[in-house]
C-alpha cells in the first residue's frame, strides 16, 4: 500500500498543547517529560510529540514512527490517560525533591 505519512491536510500541533490537559493530572509540567516509544524506541520530549486535538480525544504520536504514544480523554467525570505506546516516561524533578 502506497502512503505518504506527512500530509499537509492533517497538520498536527507540537506537544506543548498538552500542557493544559496534563496540568489537571500532574504536579509538574509534563511537556518536558520524555517518552520512549514502544514501537521504535525513539525518545522524545512530550513537547515534541505530534499532537492531534480535533477528535474525540487527544492523540500524541512519536515523531519517529508516528505511533500513538500518549492518548488522553477527559469526560465530565473521568480522565483517561493511555500510555501503552510508551515504554518509559522520564520526568525531570526539582533537585532534592525526593528527600523533602
Amino acid at each position, binding site marked *: 500500500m*502506497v502512503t505518504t505519512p506527512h500530509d499537509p491536510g492533517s497538520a498536527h500541533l507540537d506537544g506543548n498543547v498538552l500542557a493544559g490537559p496534563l496540568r489537571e493530572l500532574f504536579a509538574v509540567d509534563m511537556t518536558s517529560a520524555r517518552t520512549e516509544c514502544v514501537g521504535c524506541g525513539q525518545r522524545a520530549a512530550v513537547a515534541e510529540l505530534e499532537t492531534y486535538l480535533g477528535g474525540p480525544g487527544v492523540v500524541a504520536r512519536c515523531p519517529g514512527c508516528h505511533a500513538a504514544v500518549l492518548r488522553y*480523554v477527559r469526560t465530565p467525570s473521568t480522565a*483517561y490517560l*493511555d500510555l501503552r505506546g510508551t515504554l518509559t516516561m522520564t520526568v525531570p524533578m526539582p533537585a532534592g525533591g525526593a528527600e523533602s
Partner: protein
Amino acid sequence: MAITRGFRGRRLDADVELPPGQYLTQDFPVLSAGPTPRIDRDSWEFTITTEAGATHSWAWQQLLALPQDKPTVDIHCVTKWSKLGTAWQGVSLDVLLEQVESTADYALVHSHGGYTTNLPVQDLLDGQAWLVHQYDGEDLPPEHGGPVRLLVPHLYLWKSAKWVNGIQLLEQDEPGFWETLGYHEYGDPWREQRYAGD
C-alpha cells in the same frame, strides 16, 4: 442576502430534530487522530476475518463490481456536530457478509494506520452499514477516509472508520481505539451514549 440566509437557517433548525446535545453544521469538519494516509486504489484491499480464522478479501475492482447503494443519511459526531442529508455511494455490508460463513456476534473494524472500532455484527446488517467510496458524487477524498470508509450512520461517527481495511468477526466483544479510552462501547446518538456508562 443576509436576511435570506438568516431566515433559511432558522427554518432548517426549526424543522429538524437532532439527537440530544447535537448542533447542526452545513460544512463537513475533518477530525484527525493521526496523519492522513494516501492509499493507492490499485493496491487497496479489504479483508473480513471470521472467528474461525478464514479470510475473505476484496480488491478495489471487485468492490466496484458488487451491487452499489446510494444512501443519503444524517451523520452525528460525538464532538457534537450533526450534518443532514449526506449522499454516499458504496456497497452494503449485507452483500459482503452474505459471502462469509460466521455466527460471531461482534465486529472489530480495522483501518490503515492502526485505528480500530467495535460494534455488534447486527449493526452491520439489514441495510444499516456500507463500505462507501463516493461522497456527494465524487471519489471520497483522503481527509474523509478515502478511498474507502465504513459508514454506520445510526451510531456516532467514530464508528464509521476512515481508511477501513478490514473487519474481524469475534465471539467476544473487543473495544477499539476510543472505546478503550472512555467512549461508549455502542454509541447511539439518540440515547446520547457518548461516554462509558452513559
